[in-house]
C-alpha cells in the first residue's frame, strides 16, 4: 500500500464514498491498529463522527446488581502494577484515564475536557508537546477534587524505575508539567507522531496523589490503597479478595449525569471459559463473561438456550506462524537458534514461499475457529486496490511447483531433499485444542507437498514463560516453525513491529528477552521502522508501517493464520459498548440493563 493509494482512500472517506468503519477495518487488515487509522483520518481533516451511543436510563442508579465474570480473578488493583488483563479490568472499575479508545479506535474523553488536536491547539505542530485540559468538577471517591497535580504525580510515580510500574514505557521518555489546576502539558524528547500513550487507555489510568504520594519508588508495595482503590470511576470500592472477587457500589458523585445505572458491581474470577459461558448464556447467573476462548461450536450450542449471546470485539490479536531464520539444531556459544547461524533449508526463499502456500487458512477458520478467528480479516482479499500483493493463497499444487523449480526433489520416502538436506521441520505451539487441530491441518497439506512436519505441543505456562533454563519457551525457539497469538499492543503498531528489527533479536546474551524470536534481520526493514518513529505526517507514517508489515509477510518471516477478535458472553438484556483497543470495561459507566 503506497502513500498515494492511502491518500486517495482517505479522500473517499472524506467525501463519503467509503464509510469510516470500512476504512478502519481495512487498515487493521493491513497490520495497523484502529487508533492509528483514526489518527490518519483526523490528520487529514476528516471530522470525527462518532456513532452516538444511546444511553437510555434517565436517572443514576436503580439498575440493581451488575455481575461480571472473568475466568481469572483480578489479583491486584493498582493500574500501574496491573500485569494481566484481569488486573487492568479490575482497576478500570475504580480508576479512569484522561481518555479511552472506543471500538472503532476513536479517542473518547473521560477525565479530559476534550481531546487535544492540532486544530484546538492541544497538539503542537512540531509534534513535541501535547496539552490536555482536564474536566472540571471531578471528585475522587473520598470527595477530594481531581486536579492537574494528580496527573503530574502519576507521571512521577510511573517513571521511577524503583516503583517498577508496568506502565513505565508510556512515561519514562516524557516530561509532564502543570500549567494550571486543570491543564497539563506533556513534552516529548523528539517529535512524537503517536502521542496518546501516556494518560490514555490501559496505561493511562490515574491514581490519586493524596493516597500514593508517601508510597513511591521502593515503598510502592506498602500503599494501603493498592488493595483499597480510591478512584474517580463510576463505582466505589467495597471489597476485594485477590484471585476471587472485586466488589463496588455506585458512586453518587460520578462526573457524568445519570450514570452509572447499576447500584452494585461484582467481578468474579476463577473457573474456566466454558462454564463462564454457561453462567451467562445458559443460566443467566451472570450478566457478562470476558474472553470466551471456547470453540465456536460449543458457543453456538449454548446460544440456542436463548438467555444470552456472544459479542465479537475486533482488536489486534493475530494467530501467526513464525519461521526460524536461524538453525535450531546447531549449538553455537551455548545457544541453539543462534543469530550467527543460518537455517539449512528455511533460508531458501522458495521453501518459505511454499510453506506459506500450504497453510489452509480458510479451513482453519471454517472448521476450528468459526466466529472466533477470521482468516479473511488480516492480510486479505480486500477490494481491488489492495489485492495486488496481499492475497494469501492455499495451493498444494503451486507449492509443489515452487519446490520442484527450486530443485527440491522428492525422495523414496516422499520427503523432498536437496544436497542431502531434507525438508523436515519441527512445528511447535502451546497446548490448546484449536492449535493442535490447526497443526494437524497444516501437517496434512505439507505432507502432500513433500514436507514432513513433526508436531510438538508445549504446556502454555512453559511455552509463554521467560524461563532462561527451559529450552521449550517461544523466545528460545528451538524449533523450525512455531505458532501462537501475538497481541498488538494498543494503540501504536510501531512497538508491535519492533519485533522484526535486528536490535530486538533474542539471544543468549540478552537472556532471550529480545522480542525478535524469528531472528529476522533486514537492514531495509530496520531503516524504515526507525524512520517511522518520528515521521509526523500521519498518512506517510501509516504507509511506512504498512510497508514494514509487507516486508516481513512477503519475506515469509511470519505467516499470519487467523485474526482473532475477542469474544465475550453477554446476557440478552445488557447494553454495553466494547473495545478491542482498550479495557473491556472502558465504557463501564455507560452499561445498562434493558428493562
Amino acid at each position, binding site marked *: 500500500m503506497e502513500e498515494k493509494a492511502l491518500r486517495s482512500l482517505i479522500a473517499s472517506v472524506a467525501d463519503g464514498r467509503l464509510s469510516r468503519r470500512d476504512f478502519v477495518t481495512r487498515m487493521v487488515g493491513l497490520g495497523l491498529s484502529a487508533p492509528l487509522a483514526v489518527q490518519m483520518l483526523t490528520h487529514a481533516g476528516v471530522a470525527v463522527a462518532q456513532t452516538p451511543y444511546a444511553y437510555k436510563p434517565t436517572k443514576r442508579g436503580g439498575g440493581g446488581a451488575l455481575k461480571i*465474570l472473568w475466568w*481469572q*480473578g483480578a*489479583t*491486584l488493583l493498582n493500574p500501574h*502494577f496491573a*500485569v*494481566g488483563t484481569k488486573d487492568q479490568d479490575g482497576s478500570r472499575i475504580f480508576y479512569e484515564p484522561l481518555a479511552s479508545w472506543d471500538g472503532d479506535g476513536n479517542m473518547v474523553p473521560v477525565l479530559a475536557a476534550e481531546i487535544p488536536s492540532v486544530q484546538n491547539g492541544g497538539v503542537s505542530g512540531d509534534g513535541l508537546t501535547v496539552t490536555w485540559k482536564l474536566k472540571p468538577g471531578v471528585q475522587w471517591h473520598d470527595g477530594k477534587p481531581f486536579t492537574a497535580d494528580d496527573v503530574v504525580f502519576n507521571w512521577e510515580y510511573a517513571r521511577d*524505575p*524503583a516503583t*517498577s*510500574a*508496568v506502565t*513505565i*514505557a*508510556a512515561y*519514562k521518555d516524557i516530561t509532564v508539567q502543570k500549567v494550571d489546576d486543570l491543564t497539563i502539558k506533556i513534552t516529548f524528547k523528539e517529535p512524537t507522531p503517536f502521542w496518546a500513550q501516556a494518560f490514555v487507555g490501559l*496505561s493511562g489510568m490515574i491514581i490519586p496523589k493524596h493516597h500514593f504520594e508517601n508510597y513511591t519508588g*521502593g515503598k510502592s*508495595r506498602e500503599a494501603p490503597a493498592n*488493595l483499597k482503590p480510591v478512584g474517580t470511576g463510576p463505582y466505589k470500592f467495597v*471489597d476485594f*479478595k*485477590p*484471585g*476471587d*472477587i472485586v*466488589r463496588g457500589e455506585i458512586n453518587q458523585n460520578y462526573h457524568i449525569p445519570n450514570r452509572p445505572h447499576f447500584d*452494585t458491581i*461484582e467481578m*468474579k*474470577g*476463577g*473457573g*474456566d471459559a466454558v*462454564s463462564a459461558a*454457561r*453462567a451467562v448464556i*445458559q*443460566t443467566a*447467573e*451472570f450478566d457478562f463473561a470476558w474472553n470466551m476462548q471456547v470453540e465456536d461450536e460449543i458457543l453456538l450450542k449454548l446460544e440456542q438456550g436463548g438467555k444470552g449471546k456472544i459479542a465479537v470485539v475486533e482488536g489486534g490479536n493475530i494467530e501467526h506462524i513464525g519461521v526460524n531464520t536461524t538453525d535450531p539444531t546447531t549449538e553455537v556459544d551455548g545457544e541453539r537458534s543462534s543469530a550467527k547461524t543460518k537455517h539449512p533449508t528455511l533460508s531458501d526463499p522458495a521453501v518459505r514461499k511454499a510453506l506459506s502456500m500450504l497453510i489452509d487458512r480458510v479451513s482453519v477458520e471454517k472448521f476450528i475457529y468459526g466466529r472466533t478467528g477470521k482468516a479473511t480479516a488480516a492480510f486479505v482479499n480486500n477490494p481491488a486496490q489492495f489485492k495486488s500483493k496481499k492475497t494469501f493463497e492455499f495451493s498444494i499444487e503451486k507449492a509443489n511447483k515452487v519446490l520442484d523449480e527450486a530443485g527440491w526433489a522428492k525422495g523414496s520416502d516422499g520427503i523432498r531433499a536437496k544436497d542431502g538436506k531434507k525438508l523436515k521441520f519441527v512445528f511447535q505451539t502451546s497446548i490448546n485444542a484449536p492449535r493442535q487441530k490447526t497443526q494437524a491441518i497444516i501437517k496434512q497439506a505439507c505432507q502432500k507437498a513433500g514436507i514432513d512436519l513433526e508436531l510438538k505441543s508445549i504446556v502454555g*505456562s*512453559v511455552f*509463554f*514463560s*521467560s*524461563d532462561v*533454563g*527451559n529450552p*521449550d519457551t517461544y*523466545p528460545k525457539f528451538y524449533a523450525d516453525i512455531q505458532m501462537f497469538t501475538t497481541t498488538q*499492543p494498543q494503540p501504536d503498531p510501531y*512497538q*508491535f513491529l*519492533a*519485533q522484526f528489527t535486528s536490535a530486538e533479536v533474542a539471544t543468549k546474551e*540478552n537472556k532471550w*528477552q529480545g*522480542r525478535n524470536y524469528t531472528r529476522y534481520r533486514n537492514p531495509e526493514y530496520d531503516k524504515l521502522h526507525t524512520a517511522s518513529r518520528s515521521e509526523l505526517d500521519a498518512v506517510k507514517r501509516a504507509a511506512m508501517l504498512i510497508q514494514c508489515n509487507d516486508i516481513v509477510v512477503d519475506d515469509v518471516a511470519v505467516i499470519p493464520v487467523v485474526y482473532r477478535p475477542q469474544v465475550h458472553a453477554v446476557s440478552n438484556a445488557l447494553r454495553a459498548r466494547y473495545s478491542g483497543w482498550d479495557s473491556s470495561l472502558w465504557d463501564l459507566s455507560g452499561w445498562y440493563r434493558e428493562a
Partner: protein
Amino acid sequence: MGQYLLRRLLIAVPSLLGISLVLFCVLALAPGDPFGELTTNPNVPPEVAAALRVKFGLDDPILVRYWRWLLAMLQGDWGFSFVSRVNVDTLIMQRLPATLVVIGLSQVLALAIALPVGVLAARKPYSIFDQIANTFAFIGFSLPTFFTGLVLILIFSIWLDWLPFVYRSDISATGWRWYWEHLRQAIMPMAVLALFQAASMTRYVRSAVLDVIRLDYVTTARAKGVGERRVILKHVVRNALIPVVTLVALQMPALFGGAIVTEQIFRIPGIGSLLISSILANDTPVIMAVTFVFSCLVVFFNLMADLLYGWLDPRIKFS
C-alpha cells in the same frame, strides 16, 4: 505418654525442615517465572521484570533464598505474594472459611453416611443391603469429582435451574437468608465431595467391621446374651475403628488443602484454588506457605491418630 509426645514432636522438626527444603528447591528449579507475563508483553520494557526480580530477591542463589524464607517464617512472617503483593497470611485467611465450610461439611456428611452404611453392610455380608451399598460405593469412587460435578451442574443448575453453580463468598443477604444462600451454593460441591469420600470410607468401614465381627470374643459376647446393639457398638465398632481413624486422620489435612478440582469447577474461593492459581503463576511464597502448612498438618494429624489408637485400644502402649 508425655515423653512419647515430646519425642514425636522433636522428630517432627527435622522432617518438617526437610520437607520445606525439598519444596523450596523443587519450586526454585521448576520452569516458569512469576513475571513471565511481563516479559511477553511488548509494552513493558524488560528492565521492569529484571528490577522486580532484584527487588523480590529472585536472582539470589537458592540456599540464600531458602535461608531468608526460613528465618522470616520462624518469626511468623509468611512473606507476600509476588502476584498480588498481599501478605500471604491475609490471602490464606481470606480463603480458609470457604474451604472449611465446604470441605468440612462434606467430610462430616461422608462420615455420617459411611459409618452406619459400612457397619450395617458388614453385619450381614452379601445381603441385598450389602450388595446395594457396594454397588453405590463402587460407582462413587470410580466417578471422578469433575465428572459428577459437571453432571450435577447440568441437572440442578441448567435443566432444573434450582441451584447456582458459581460460588460467591460475598453474599449480601442477612439473617436466615444469608445462611440459606450459603447452603444453597454449597450443596452441590458438598454432595460431590461427600459422595466420593463416603464411597471409599464405606468400603473401609465394612472390611474393618467384617474383620472384627467374626472374632471369638464377639461370639462370646453374643453367647453371654449381650444385646445386639451393645455388641456392635461396644465390642465391634470400637475395635474396627482403628484403621478408619487412620484414614480419617490422614484426610484431615485435606480439609485445609481444599479440593482443587471441585473448587475449580464451582469457583469456590478456597485454598485449593489459591494453590493452583499460585502454581500457575509461579507465585513461590504462596505455594510455599500453603504446602508447608499442609505438611505441618499431615505431621500433626499423624500424631493425633497415633494418640487416638491408645484411647480406642488400651493394649496399645506408648513407650
